[in-house]
């Protein structure tokens, strides 16, 4: 019997792909702990497929956009975009800055995807690598 770690606290039993939760009352988890106590080592977390990596990067990009908007006191990027026509100059300026960054962010991400498909670029190895290739967050207008 062998096991593989997952991206969560659950363990994958290699023989049948079963997902074993880390519940002390689960007899399969007890067997896993006994296996570990016997000096065995589980296989590391499985590498993501290209599609899974792309989905992860997209989610990380959206999270960065939203967290930046939140740092500027908006609920998220979508909410910030509703202030493009605001009659308050500060709100309008911030929304314009954020939306310009958002547009450029996804435009660059789209270009990168096209280059990867064309074989002229490789998929970034990590989320940090991907974000480093994207336009940096703007400075908040004063």
């Amino acid at each position, binding site marked *: 019997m062998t096991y593989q770690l997952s991206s969560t606290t659950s363990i994958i039993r290699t023989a049948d792909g079963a997902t074993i939760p880390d*519940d002390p009352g689960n007899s399969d988890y007890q067997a896993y702990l006994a296996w570990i106590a016997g000096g065995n080592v589980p296989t590391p977390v499985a590498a993501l497929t290209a599609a899974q990596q792309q989905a992860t990067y997209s989610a990380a990009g959206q999270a960065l956009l939203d967290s930046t908007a939140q740092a500027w006191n908006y609920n998220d990027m979508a909410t910030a975009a509703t202030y493009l026509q605001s009659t308050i100059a500060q709100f309008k300026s911030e929304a314009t800055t954020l939306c310009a960054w958002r547009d450029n962010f996804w435009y660059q991400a789209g270009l990168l995807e096209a280059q990867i498909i064309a074989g002229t670029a490789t998929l970034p190895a990590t989320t940090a690598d991907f974000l480093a290739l994207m336009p940096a967050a703007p400075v908040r207008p004063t």
Partner: protein
Amino acid sequence: MTTLVPNAMLAFDGGSLGFRNRLINGSFLIDQRNAGASQTFTAGAAIAYCVDRWYASCTGANMTGQRVSATAGGYMLTGAASNTGTLFGQRIESYNLADQVSATVTAQIKISSTSITSVTWTAYYATVQDTFSTKTQIATGTFTTNSTPTVYTASFNAGANAANGIAIEYTTGALLAGQTLTYGAAQLEPGTVITPTEHRDLGDVLRQCQRYCNVISAYASVANGFILAYPVTMRAAPTATLIGGSLASINQITTSTQNWNSASTGIATVLNVAEL
């Protein structure tokens, strides 16, 4: 010393005799894992669950097991050349025996075999509550069996540790090619009086079984995540195994729900197991 209660007395006092079987699926009717299909037990491997709540193992050579009938129940093991032994049993959860500490209980089971003439029964308690990786023998004995289905009984004191949970196991010697060993009508009840095997509503037994094992299915669409609830709250967060369709992952498994992340569109089916 055991006594069979006259049928007239049962008819008169039927109400007080309900819910006395501490074994679940004692008739072997519920078979969620295999739905009546044959299952192979690997020689030398750990116990493998078969019909709900029951497990088996073997030594020497693989054997197969199969529910005898969807309406009459029963479970039949079929041997193979070089097989040297069989084991069949059930582990009873601690909460279902907490009232039987140091009390006498009586086990009964119907056995027949084309070749086996001696079946050893052994009762164990779990060293740690509901954890049978280490267990201690409580009592043991032997039934002399033959090819005629016969009910065999044994009474024993459940002991001071009954509240940890008890396993009742039946073991035999070699079950060779073409030879069969059939179990049916299993019961473990408080006291020394042997009562007729309890008949439970099929849906009620299924619900009992689902605390330890259930199968859930749902329609999944691409790149979607959703939470599914089990038919009943399970004994522990279950081990989840995809047995049909496709899923990217199963996450956040609790005793009542789990989170599916789908990989493609279609029906996915997952077997959840929280056996002892």
